[in-house]
């Protein structure tokens, strides 16, 4: 990695620090998240470890043990260097319900997200769609075209996922660099629109019809949502 800027400023502080942004890649197990991240960046596994919370318990064989346990989780992690002062990081988030607790940290400050879907298993993406909607994180739905999958038109996918009209839905081939980067471009463009809309809404003080899909309180833990997800998965 090369950040070539001069590192000698007054008091050791250079005038501008490099900027980092992140995009999350979510979706069900085996939907192609690793493939997509790998198509556009050098991919490496990132290990994190977390305490398992209530939400995770039914899915981990802890046999009714009441103490908290810790688990390690590997995430896909990729870096795209836009230029010396700007890097975009991709995080492929584990799709299983028991990893919801990881998402809160990842989602904080994310530019946006991709929900990758397989039309044969659309249900697997419900939880991710729900999560990003509740948190007001701009996301796009990318339909990974598996060769043996029946082709659905994108409007059908939109209806099945009950998406807001503003949410972009697009086809992709997660193996293709061009296709994967187009998916990411659509996330950034969507985020751009959302940021602009958000700024307008702030000055207009409400009156936006899409207001109800925003999270009630920024920074409030998604415990309710999480409990719901785990309850529905039981």
């Amino acid at each position: 990695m090369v950040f070539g800027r001069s590192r000698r400023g007054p008091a050791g502080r250079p005038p501008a620090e490099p900027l980092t942004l992140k995009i999350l890649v979510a979706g069900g197990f085996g939907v192609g998240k690793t493939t997509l991240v790998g198509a556009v960046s050098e991919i490496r596994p990132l290990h994190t470890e977390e305490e398992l919370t209530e939400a995770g318990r039914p899915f981990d064989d802890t046999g009714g043990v009441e103490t908290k346990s810790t688990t390690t989780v590997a995430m896909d992690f990729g870096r795209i260097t836009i230029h010396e002062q700007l890097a975009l990081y991709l995080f492929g988030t584990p799709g299983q319900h028991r990893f919801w607790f990881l998402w809160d940290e990842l989602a904080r400050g994310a530019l946006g997200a991709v929900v990758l879907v397989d039309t044969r298993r659309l249900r697997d993406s419900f939880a991710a769609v729900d999560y990003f909607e509740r948190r007001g994180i701009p996301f796009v739905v990318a339909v990974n075209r598996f060769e043996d999958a029946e082709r659905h038109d994108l409007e059908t996918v939109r209806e099945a996922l009950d998406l807001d009209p503003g949410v972009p839905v697009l086809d992709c081939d997660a193996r293709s660099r061009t296709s994967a980067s187009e998916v990411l471009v659509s996330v950034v463009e969507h985020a751009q629109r959302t940021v602009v809309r958000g700024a307008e809404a702030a000055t207009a003080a409400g009156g936006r019809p899409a207001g109800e899909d925003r999270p009630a309180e920024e920074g409030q833990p998604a415990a309710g949502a999480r409990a719901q997800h785990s309850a529905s998965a039981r």
Partner: protein
Amino acid sequence: MTDHWFDDAAGPVVRPYAMTRGRTTSGSRKDAPFDLIALVIAEEPGGAEPAAADSGPHGDLYADTSLAPEHIDIVERCRRGPQSVAELAVALDLPVGVVRVLLGDLVEDEWVRVTRPVPPAELPDENILREVIDGLRAL
């Protein structure tokens, strides 16, 4: 694993934390933990010449007995250029939690500083997003 005093649940987590001397938090971490995409930047060495980079605010990096080899590894990597917390975890092959503890020590001793990433809602202008889009299209 049944004849051990620990069980499988201890997993691979225990050993990495040995290098933090069992600590899961660092003294200097008063606020939120370092973000995964926060950049870690080496503090300027005392001397002006890169050749004199061994000396930090508290003297020689390699002579500081309070530092583990992993601490030194982090400082060395950051001296080559800013590294995100996530990249350091990957490069050192350590869980993020361990890296955060080590970074807390290094921040406290002023070997490095950690930037706070700018939330997208506070991006100064749209040009940055435009640059990201152009960069992605050029991949």
